[in-house]
């Protein structure tokens, strides 16, 4: 079996200008921050970032990496609003596709299943469709004739996810309470990179925790603390002090350069 171990910087160098990059986790939870930092250090630009957004969004916006953002929300959980995301939006710096959370999942699922779209009710009547006129509806071909949103596939060039454990072949395990949508991100992407707290020879715990198998993964990065400051339970909770420091620096441009330098050191 193949050994897929690589470094975070090697993953960073795989990200090319204009790519669509899906980022796993949820809000400020189990974000692949070590891989996001590798993008910050790379020359990649004009990215389309697809994410249930947390500080990954703010950091990439701060570095000017984002051309377009596809999201259902951006939040730091214990801090409702991310200052960098707010700034990027309020200055019109980024193009956006803002979706309902369920539409977002449905788009990933369509991509994972190699379908052009999947139907969903969410979005009807709301302004999601108003601000994304490229989204179409479809009428049920059955007797009900119901009109539904035809959520297009959210195809990804690259998926970046962080799990608790992985082996060198790309099988990977989550040990927290929620898998989030990391498996879907991988199935929706051409190139799939997983960072983990620890690379192991064999897995402990129930087999249901083995979220990713090696068919779904192209590269494995051992990155202890690689989700920090977001949470990666049970290995560690969110580092609220560091998150506050991030948010304060993000809200005050005079503090930002120094914070970013320390973050990437």
């Amino acid at each position, binding site marked *: 079996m193949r050994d897929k171990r690589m470094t975070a910087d090697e993953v960073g160098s795989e990200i090319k200008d204009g790519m669509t990059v899906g980022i796993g986790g*949820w809000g400020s939870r189990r974000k692949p921050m070590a891989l996001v930092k590798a993008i910050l250090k790379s020359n990649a630009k004009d990215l389309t970032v697809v994410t249930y*957004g947390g500080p990954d969004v703010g950091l990439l916006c701060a570095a000017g990496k984002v051309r377009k953002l596809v*999201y*259902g*929300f*951006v*939040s730091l959980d214990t801090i*409702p*609003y991310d200052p960098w*995301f*707010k700034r990027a*939006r*309020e*200055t*019109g710096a980024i193009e956006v596709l*803002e*979706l*309902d*959370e*369920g*539409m977002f*999942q449905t788009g990933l699922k369509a991509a994972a299943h190699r379908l052009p779209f999947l139907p*969903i*009710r*969410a*979005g*009807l*009547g*709301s*302004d*999601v469709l*108003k*601000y994304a006129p490229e989204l179409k509806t479809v009428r049920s071909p059955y007797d009900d004739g*119901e*009109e539904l949103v035809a959520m297009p596939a959210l195809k990804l060039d690259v998926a970046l996810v962080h799990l608790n454990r992985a082996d060198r072949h790309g099988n990977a395990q989550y040990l927290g*309470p*929620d*898998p*989030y*949508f990391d498996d879907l991100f991988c199935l929706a992407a051409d190139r799939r990179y997983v960072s983990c707290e620890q690379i192991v020879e064999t897995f402990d715990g129930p087999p249901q925790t083995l979220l990713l198998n090696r068919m779904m993964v192209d590269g494995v990065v051992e990155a202890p603390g690689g989700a920090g400051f977001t949470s990666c339970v049970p290995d560690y909770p969110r580092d609220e002090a560091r998150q506050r420091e991030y948010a304060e620096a993000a809200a005050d441009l005079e503090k930002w350069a120094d914070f970013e330098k320390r973050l990437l050191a």
Partner: protein
Amino acid sequence: MSDITRAEICVTACADLFAGAGETLASPMGLIPSLGAKLARLTTEPDLLLSDGEAFLLTPESTVEGWLPYRQVFDVVAHGRRHVVMGANQVDRFGNQNISAIGDHAKPTRQLLGFRGAPGNTINHRTSYWVPRHSPRVLVEAVDVVSGVGYDRAVGPFHDIHRVVTNLAVLDFNTPDHSMRLVSTHPGVSVDEVQKQTSFPLTATDVVETRLPTDEELELIRTKLDPDAKRDKEVPS
């Protein structure tokens, strides 16, 4: 029991949102709606399902009775056995809600959370709103961005905006054109005051006073659910 606070009245008004819900997932956002849902489960709605806000369903004794990661929450949303109580940066006369952005969506004056699950929630199952600071800036004539879908834009078979509970009053949409109606004002609040704090005219016939918590409810709120009185920070008396 005496010295009933406004926050406690809001908690029981939120508990009453779940009357008759039975085996339904209650998804309250914010402290007061959460206390309300827990109170309902301990009193009139023992069959209610409650999540810890992460991935577990918990009994009132905080033992895990189920697993509900986000992917399964989305299944419940589509399946429909859910009553969400969302916040609202803006809510309008027909129950449209905005948690996305203030101003022009292309370049907002104030970016908020995003659509989150509001479009899917409101099109799939019962939805109520909690407004801790009832003011003309929140109760607006028309929302800037439609996140949650109101009655004038409702489509599909499952749209059901139930009530709006605020720090001043309880409102619903039980009028011929589904515009907002004042159901009850909290003790000490006048109909005029609610109208003054609302940017559009409310239907206000047969307005009653919001009920007071019972002694049993007060005991549960004060000793079991919120002994540190965090509720008073969300709604000062």
